[in-house]
């Protein structure tokens, strides 16, 4: 099935309580699939087409505040519109899942795949000091798997989770193994606003605190949470890194291309390895640093003007030269292009 369809089916099977979306290419299949599947009649999952991305993310905010497993999906211009809601959700410490099937930008841009929303996804995106947990699938299988994982992480840390995909993974068709369905949870988290029984104090979901000292304490609490996430939730995959003299760092679609580049280069005798970050926040900095000190050079390969390369640079911290190779605007690099770029850096051209 398509990557987008896999997200939709996985959401039903993960026991999601609600989906709120607004159509935008290249991810409209998600809501189309859900409307067709009509999970409301089977699991009771609410699926609603909102009047805008702004409304959709605020529906997610309201649903998440009730302790429900809720999600939205969109593509780059729509994700920009959702940023207001996302920062409120992060500020209110609510769990939810957001899927961005990235297309090239800025502005209305193109509808072809890109990785140009990296900064927006991993550095916060909206106003204020916060982070999302960001998962980067490189296959349709991972599109499906990360839905359940995303909900788990969102509830474990009471933090919004984003699946940062792109138009290629959303549209491509692959075989998928789908997890067996789980029932929708009946447990109500103690912080959820579902009506105040006499047994507890009233719950208030808010991100407002006019007292600067209290707000700073809250910011510190968030930092502590993000540090715990950095410690426990880093996920990555190494491909032929054992003896790598040259290290490629790439995620998502770029990582699939780079895997091919590694094979091509190794045929020519070049000891190339690939580190694929699976979590972009938290970023596998230690792992990249560890491999970089043993390598002659590091290349960050992205479908962007060079965004993740900044995190690679921070991880490597000057110990090894770091380069960026990227295509933009919906152009996807070929494995050969990556190898050519690598060779040019080896020879110092």
């Amino acid at each position, binding site marked *: 099935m398509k990557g987008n369809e896999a997200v939709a089916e996985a959401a039903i099977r993960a026991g999601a309580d609600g989906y709120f979306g607004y159509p935008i290419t290249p991810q409209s299949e998600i809501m189309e699939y859900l409307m067709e599947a009509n999970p409301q009649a089977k699991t009771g999952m609410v699926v609603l087409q909102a009047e805008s991305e702004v*409304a959709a993310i605020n529906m997610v905010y309201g649903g998440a505040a009730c302790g429900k497993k809720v999600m939205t999906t969109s593509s780059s211009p729509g994700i920009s519109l959702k940023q207001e809601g996302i920062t409120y959700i992060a500020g209110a410490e609510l769990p939810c899942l957001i899927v961005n099937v990235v297309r090239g930008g800025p502005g209305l841009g193109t509808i072809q795949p890109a990785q140009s929303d990296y900064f927006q996804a991993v550095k916060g995106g909206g106003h204020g000091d916060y982070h999302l947990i960001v998962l980067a699938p490189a296959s349709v299988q991972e599109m499906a798997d990360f839905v359940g994982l995303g909900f788990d992480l969102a509830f474990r840390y009471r933090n919004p989770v984003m699946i940062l995909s792109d138009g290629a993974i959303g549209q491509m068709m692959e075989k998928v193994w789908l997890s067996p369905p789980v029932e929708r949870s009946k447990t109500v988290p103690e912080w959820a606003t579902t009506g105040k029984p006499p047994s507890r104090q009233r719950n208030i979901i808010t991100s*407002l605190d006019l007292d600067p000292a209290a707000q700073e304490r809250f910011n510190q609490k968030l930092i502590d949470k993000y540090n715990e996430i950095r410690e426990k939730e880093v996920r990555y995959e190494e491909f032929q890194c054992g003896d790598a003299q040259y290290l490629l760092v790439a995620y998502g679609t770029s990582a699939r291309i780079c895997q091919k580049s590694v094979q091509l280069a190794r045929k020519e005798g070049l000891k190339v390895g690939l580190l694929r970050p699976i979590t972009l926040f938290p970023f596998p900095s230690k792992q990249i640093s560890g491999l970089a000190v043993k390598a002659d050079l590091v290349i960050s390969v992205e479908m962007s003007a060079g965004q993740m390369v900044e995190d690679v640079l921070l991880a490597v911290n000057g110990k090894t030269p770091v380069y960026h190779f990227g295509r933009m605007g919906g152009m996807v690099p070929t494995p050969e292009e990556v190898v050519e770029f690598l060779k040019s850096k080896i020879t110092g051209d």
Partner: protein
Amino acid sequence: MAEATGIKDYIKPENLVYKRTGIMTENVLHYCPGCGHGTVHRILAEIIEEEGLQSEAIGISPVGCSVFLYNYLDIDWQEAAHGRAPALATAVKRLCPDKFVFTYQGDGDLAAIGTSETIHSCNRGENILIIFINNGIYGMTGGQMAPTTLPGMKSSTSPLGRDTRLMGYPLKITDIVATLPGTYYVTRQSVHTPANARKTKRAIKKAVQYQKLNKGTCFVEIVSNCPSGWRMTPVEANKWLEENMLPYYPLGDLKAPVDVNAQKPVKSDNND
């Protein structure tokens, strides 16, 4: 010869005629003297108490003067982003259909930045109650022009008075939502006199009952004042409200449910 009596001798349960509603918390209201918010809060609290809705109620508070509404009513609250309360309420009600879900929003929140959320939630007929406080001004940010500011009315961003040629006309959003098939009960009330406050209470109480029927959105506008923003005393503000706001925003039901059996409008005591 009768014993001398003190005030303490009168403080007995049988003499109690008025008390703080149990749903109101002991937090001191932050509103300016004469502001209508306190009255509407009290009305809401009374209704939630009288209807036994404390464990059912989920309120969505806005951005504006009533942003801290969640400090005053002892129920579960969600604090929305500016204008987005009906979107939150939509999801809350759909995910928790047995709960009593309401938003409380000012004119800037509901009729400017949140116009889209307001109209579309009403148009979908979400089974929620929207309480709309219209005082024709942005109170919290210091008295700027609102979408409902009257023609010629002065505010900090219309210091010479609202010039409709440049700034457009006051938006009668309540009239708009009354035209939408998704709304079930749409009314405009006020709390500037005790009689009007009682009518407002009856209107909100009806809306609470209607939500149980799952027939669509109930929308209660309350024309209110802003003595600070209007630069008036509370008494002057209420007089000004009556003389200027009410002619533009006439009170009464804009859409009242039809009795299904009788096929005629339900008798309403909320029309002036």
